[in-house]
């Protein structure tokens, strides 16, 4: 069997630009449908070409409006763009309202854009893994740029770093003093700070505060985060925002940092995959293996401690099974 013969038809269709197949594959990723696995795997070697940019920040700072203008800017420069906008699911009903499309206006016949809304559906780690797969599908579909929009609230944004090569953190004037910025946890992930709604007073002060914080802070690499002021009502700063993103991308290449980041991301991903698989296996074994169930009984009775039980589980009585 040749390698080509093993490529699933859906993978080929996605590469050829079939948007329906892409949309369907994204749904399968969201649903954890194992049928999509061969597609994602077949396409992996075709990924890594798109620039994946994370756009994150608190609710209401104007991320969606900003993305709308950014997409228009990129389209004017002939770049194709796919967007995945992640919004939270209700922890109570599992439902969600995904409203990021409202801000999005563009010609219905523009084939250079693909917009997808995604609900976070449950636990945080899962969102990051699914978002990464969706971004890869979009990458393999040939989009020049993939924008990943998330609501910034701590851990989800950290996950963004594992998906995007450049992270933009969007803030607004009067969000709080610099201590808030330190607390917010957004500071560490930003390659570019975007102060949106800069038509409002206070934007210059916010810029000054951030710039000072950046000057004080130790950075992960030699990159010093940029600060850009934008306004979506006055449509200003959009080209500057993109040129800062571009500058970071160029830095990644010229400094060799991209390879470092990629290795880190992919090793994290591999470890996660193994952890998930081994975890499932062990949970299964703990359920079925009578010897291990007995160990669990002992832990419950406080005669064996969990650490000891974990070691026994790891060694695993495989004999005769």
């Amino acid at each position, binding site marked *: 069997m040749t390698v080509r013969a093993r490529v699933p038809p859906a993978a080929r269709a996605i590469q050829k630009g079939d948007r329906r197949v892409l949309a*369907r594959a994204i749904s399968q990723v969201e649903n954890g449908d194992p049928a999509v696995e061969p597609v994602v795997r077949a396409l992996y070697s075709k990924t890594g070409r798109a620039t994946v940019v994370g756009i994150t920040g608190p609710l209401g700072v104007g991320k969606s409006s900003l993305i709308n203008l950014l997409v228009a800017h990129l389209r004017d420069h002939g770049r194709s763009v796919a967007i995945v906008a992640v919004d939270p699911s209700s922890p109570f009903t599992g439902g969600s309202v995904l409203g990021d499309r409202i801000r999005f206006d563009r010609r219905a*016949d523009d084939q250079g854009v693909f917009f*997808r809304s995604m*609900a976070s559906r449950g636990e945080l780690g899962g969102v990051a893994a699914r978002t990464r797969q969706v971004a890869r599908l979009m990458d393999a579909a040939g989009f020049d740029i993939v924008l990943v929009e998330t609501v910034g609230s701590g851990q989800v944004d950290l996950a963004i770093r594992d998906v995007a090569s450049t992270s933009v953190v969007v803030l607004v004037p009067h969000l709080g003093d610099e201590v808030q910025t330190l607390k917010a946890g957004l500071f560490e992930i930003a390659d570019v700070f975007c102060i949106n709604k800069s038509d409002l007073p206070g934007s210059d002060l916010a810029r000054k505060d951030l710039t000072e914080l950046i000057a004080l802070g130790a950075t992960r690499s030699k990159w010093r985060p940029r600060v850009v002021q934008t306004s979506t009502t006055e449509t200003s700063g959009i080209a500057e925002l993109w040129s800062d993103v571009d500058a970071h991308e160029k830095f990644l290449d010229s400094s060799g940092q991209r390879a470092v980041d990629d290795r880190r991301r992919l090793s994290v991903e591999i470890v996660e995959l193994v952890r998930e698989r081994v975890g499932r296996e062990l949970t299964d074994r703990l359920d079925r293996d009578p010897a291990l169930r007995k160990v669990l009984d002992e832990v419950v009775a406080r005669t064996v401690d969990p650490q000891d039980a974990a070691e026994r589980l790891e060694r695993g009585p495989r004999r005769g099974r």
Partner: protein
Amino acid sequence: MPRSSKSTPIRVLIAKPGLDGHDRGAKVVARALRDAGFEVIYAGLRQTPEEIVRAALEEDVDLIGLSILSGAHMALFPKVLALLKKEKAGKIPVFAGGIIPDEDARRLKKAGIRAIFGPGTTLEEIVTTAQRLARPAA
């Protein structure tokens, strides 16, 4: 390709075709569907039929809900249905709500709109119908 199973959330696009600016009804329905566990892609006001169909395909929705109060339903709804058919997506059920005279409602249903909700419809009725349309076997 198998469609999503019963346990995965139903994805529904809620959109307002045409030019009227009253989206309170659409928002109330969006919220009710969310509370019933749907993933609601809210496309908002002043959508062209082309935009609606494109959004439905990109978002790979199970269901489309259209809201209209302007009176242009006889022009816009059949256009949405025709575009869906053209894209070989005629199987996505479309329901509608708004101010639609009975006579028009009959004709729209014949044209393929699966359910039409006028004033006075309970949210429960909308949710139940939406569930039935999206997952007929369920």
